[in-house]
């Protein structure tokens, strides 16, 4: 069958599954007074539409920062403004200042879901298609198989179309960045990634690989002459992008500082809730949160994260190939996830870890369906586990790791991890936790996942650091 037929069918299936998941409940549905992420997004539309830009990030009578204050960079705010304009056209009740808090209706849900789909169709899906068509090797069937697997990845679908967020936008922009870099258009790639950074500060997880790769590549071309020219071009692109995004906030330094304070909340503590990273798991044995002061927690995580990403970044600086870049993306995002400050479980976009969150949102059925489908599909499409590690894992560094354990480990480990995951899922749903340990299942899930992530982190660091200098591994 021709490529375009297979590709169009994959896209149709991907969009169909997304829309199917969107029928289910969203975060905070019917749960006053705070509701959830859905209400947060609606609230940002209300704030950005009705208030002047200078008040968006500040605490005023009309803008109570305790009720879902804006805590993403300006591009999110502009996106919300755009959606708000559309919402106003359809039904002004949806964005009425202070009067639309907790607004819930089937029509509004349809509108909000449609905005997520629109963002995906415009940004994420084209990026995935182009990536699979131009930056993966292999036969048509293999490319389409990869495309289908990426499009049907449950984590992203469940978070964006179930829980409700716009991760497709930021991840899509990052993917455009990777695409640009992979095709040799460094300036455009950096433009896309700068936009991604200005959309969600979480993309900082990927910032270091971009930086090291581009710096290393320019250094290769000679720091006097062509290399310098490329460096300046990239730097100017990045700076101009940032300036354009932050333009309204640059008039007053207090404005810019307030935005920074909102998007990097350093006063909140090492972690919140149950996250599958090092600190939360460590907390099970040693109660760090109570031993150390807030400031020292911050410095500790900063230091350890820096330590964790140093080997990978240095290697990338020395050998700036695309393959190294992809590995570094994985390592960097994993390092940040495992060791940095105030990490939310959404940062890993991992379905198994999402279990408590999804149960809270009433999303058990779509979780089961999409995860099962993904497993069935991927085991059929990707015959060799090794072949898929690169393409998949590069993508945002968050993966259902147990499925992609490296081939040199015993295959039985894959199946036993799988069995454990299914067991934990079933237990979390079906069994009540024992009286003395009310958080048993979330803790078990996050510790289990943490061990897998740590294992993957170590493995990929080994792979990246051991790749010989001259080896041109294309994928």
């Amino acid at each position, binding site marked *: *069958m*021709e490529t375009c*037929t*297979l590709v*169009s*069918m*994959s896209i*149709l*299936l991907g*969009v*169909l*599954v997304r*829309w*199917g*998941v969107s*029928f*289910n409940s969203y975060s905070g549905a019917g749960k006053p007074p705070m509701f959830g992420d859905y209400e947060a997004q609606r609230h940002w539309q209300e704030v950005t539409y009705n208030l002047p830009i200078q008040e968006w990030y500040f605490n005023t009578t009309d803008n109570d920062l305790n009720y879902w204050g804006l805590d993403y960079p300006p591009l999110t705010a502009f996106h919300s403004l755009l959606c708000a304009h559309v919402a106003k056209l359809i039904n002004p009740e949806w964005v009425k200042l202070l009067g639309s808090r907790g607004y819930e209706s*089937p029509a509004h849900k*349809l509108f909000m879901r449609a905005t997520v*789909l629109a963002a995906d169709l415009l940004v994420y899906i084209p990026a995935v298609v182009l990536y699979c068509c131009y930056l993966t090797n292999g036969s048509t*069937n*293999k490319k*389409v*198989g990869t495309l*289908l697997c990426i499009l049907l990845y449950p984590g992203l679908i469940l978070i964006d179309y179930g829980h409700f967020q716009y991760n497709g936008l930021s991840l899509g922009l990052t993917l455009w960045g990777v695409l640009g870099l992979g095709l040799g258009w460094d300036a455009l790639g950096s433009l896309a990634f700068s936009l991604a950074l200005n959309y969600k500060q979480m993309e900082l997880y990927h910032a270091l690989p971009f930086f090291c790769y581009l710096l290393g590549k320019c250094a290769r071309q000679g720091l006097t002459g062509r290399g310098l020219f490329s460096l300046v071009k990239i730097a100017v692109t990045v700076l101009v992008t940032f300036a354009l995004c932050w333009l309204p906030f640059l008039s007053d330094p207090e404005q810019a500082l307030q935005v920074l304070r909102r998007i990097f909340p350093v006063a909140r503590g090492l972690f919140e809730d149950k996250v599958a990273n090092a600190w939360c798991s460590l907390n099970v044995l040693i109660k760090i949160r109570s031993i150390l002061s807030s400031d020292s927690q911050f410095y500790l995580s900063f230091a350890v994260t820096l330590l964790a990403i140093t080997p990978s970044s240095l290697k990338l600086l020395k050998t700036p190939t695309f393959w190294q870049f992809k590995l570094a993306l994985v390592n960097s995002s994993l390092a940040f996830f495992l060791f940095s400050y105030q990490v939310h479980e959404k940062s890993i976009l991992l379905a198994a870890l999402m279990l408590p969150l999804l149960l809270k949102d009433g999303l058990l*059925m*779509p979780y*089961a*369906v*999409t995860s*099962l*489908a993904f497993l*069935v*599909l991927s085991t*059929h*499409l*990707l*015959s060799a586990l090794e072949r898929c590690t690169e393409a998949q894992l590069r993508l945002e560094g968050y993966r259902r790791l147990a499925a992609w354990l490296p081939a040199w480990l015993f295959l039985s480990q894959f199946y036993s991890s799988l069995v454990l995951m299914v067991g934990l899922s079933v237990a979390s749903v079906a069994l009540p936790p024992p009286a003395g340990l009310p958080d048993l299942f979330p803790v078990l899930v996050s510790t289990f996942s943490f061990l897998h992530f740590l294992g993957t982190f170590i493995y990929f660091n080994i792979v990246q650091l051991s790749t010989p200098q001259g080896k041109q591994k294309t994928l």
Partner: protein
Amino acid sequence: VAVMAAPVESSGWFPALAIAVSLLKCLFINAYHSTDFEVHRNWLAITHSLPISRWYYENTSEWTLDYPPLFAWFEYGLSQAAVHFDRGMLVVENLNYASPATILFQRLSVVFADLVFIYAVKECCTTVREEKAAKDLLRRPCFVLAVLLLWNFGLFIVDHIHFQYNGFLFGFLLLSVARHLQARHLEGALWFSIVLNLKHINLYVAPAYGIYLLRCFCFTQDNTDGSLRWRSFSPVRLVSLGAVVLSVTAASFGPFVAMGQLPQVLSRLFPFKRGLCHAYWAPNFWALYNVLDKALSMLGVRLGLLDVAGLPKASMTGGLVQEFQHAVLPSVSPPTALLCTLLAMLPALWCVWRRPCGGRGFLRCLVQCALASFMFSWHVHEKAVLLAVLPLSILAVESRRDAGIFLMLATTGHYSLFPLLFTPAEFPIKVLLMLLFTIYSFSALRNLFSGEGSLLHPLEALYLLGLVAVEVLCEVVFPLSPWQQTLPFVPLLVTSVYCALGVSYSFVRLYVSLLTQEVTEKTKRL
């Protein structure tokens, strides 16, 4: 579309397809469901809570039991499982009861009942003739057939969104077809009797079964020139056939006959009080007839030949049309419709009697009967087009001509199901799924017959592209136009008439292909 990386797992693709589509069905549990959902909930309640003697008399709800008794037994069986989900749905007085547990149970019951369909599709795939074993899985006829049946658009949206049990029913029908293709006739007759007693719409294709079984099963041998050898009549076979059919019917109707309720059951099964057409006209001959009548009457009024006041004030649109009076053309009554249907079936039945051509001849006759009934019967639902489309899929993967007709009929028939899902949230589903199925069917069938010329005539392709225009007009342009208030029935009318053209055309083409095949057979013999 499961792409196999290694041909080693050559049998793993079928479960993968089946599991994938079943999982997809589960995603739409919370989507819109029609009143058919309440219909089946009511039947669960009736069969569970009331004694058998009351089943066909109960009318607390307007959705009375109007399927044959075997289906009532099926609902009874389901209700035993329903007890564990939500007892509230089994109370007859709980009209429109739709708790989350109820919805989950009913939706899952459809998904599980589809297991019958999946098994039947597997059997049909084994009967497909492959000339040369293609190495690429995607190019094998059995794979294409499996996708065309398992992922059939019409079946998906009617069963899993609109809500019905057609997959379950078609499973039995396709199983009986598969058995006939495998020359296991008694078993085929058994499955057909079962499906006939589950939903009497299958009476549409009963003549095909009757004639074929009489011709090929009861007369055991043919003469050398292919004509019937009257001497080879086998009474044993006739009796065994009769025994199978009668025993199934007895198991189904027996209790009601014993209680003397047969007239009541029959009156529930065949409610001829309903009008010629449903509120949304099925795209059959009568839709064209109605439109012609309306056009002629408007023309007549314009030309002064007719008096406006004398015209019958029949409402073509809203609600359940009770009686339909035509203005210019003669009115149609149930016996007339029946006569037309039988006349339309006759040539196909005659062909299968004269020269059966084995199982495939039977299948062709079955499709013809189904389509003829769709075209001319009384109070046809647009969903009945699936009765022709699904069996035609089997023929489509084996013959180029049939593939072309299938593309025409399936695309048009599926499009005519669009008005069933009229809510805005379901709009993307029907469009996406339709595109998915249509792109696949065109592409796969074109690949199967790649060396033999194009499947569709350019005019046919143009007609099918016109469907896109109709869709845009009806669902995007019209609602935003000023006529939305004054002429709300126009989108349904346009859809119905446009699709009726396509369906009628397919009907004629099928007949032409059947009769020209007959002629070429004759000239070959001479």
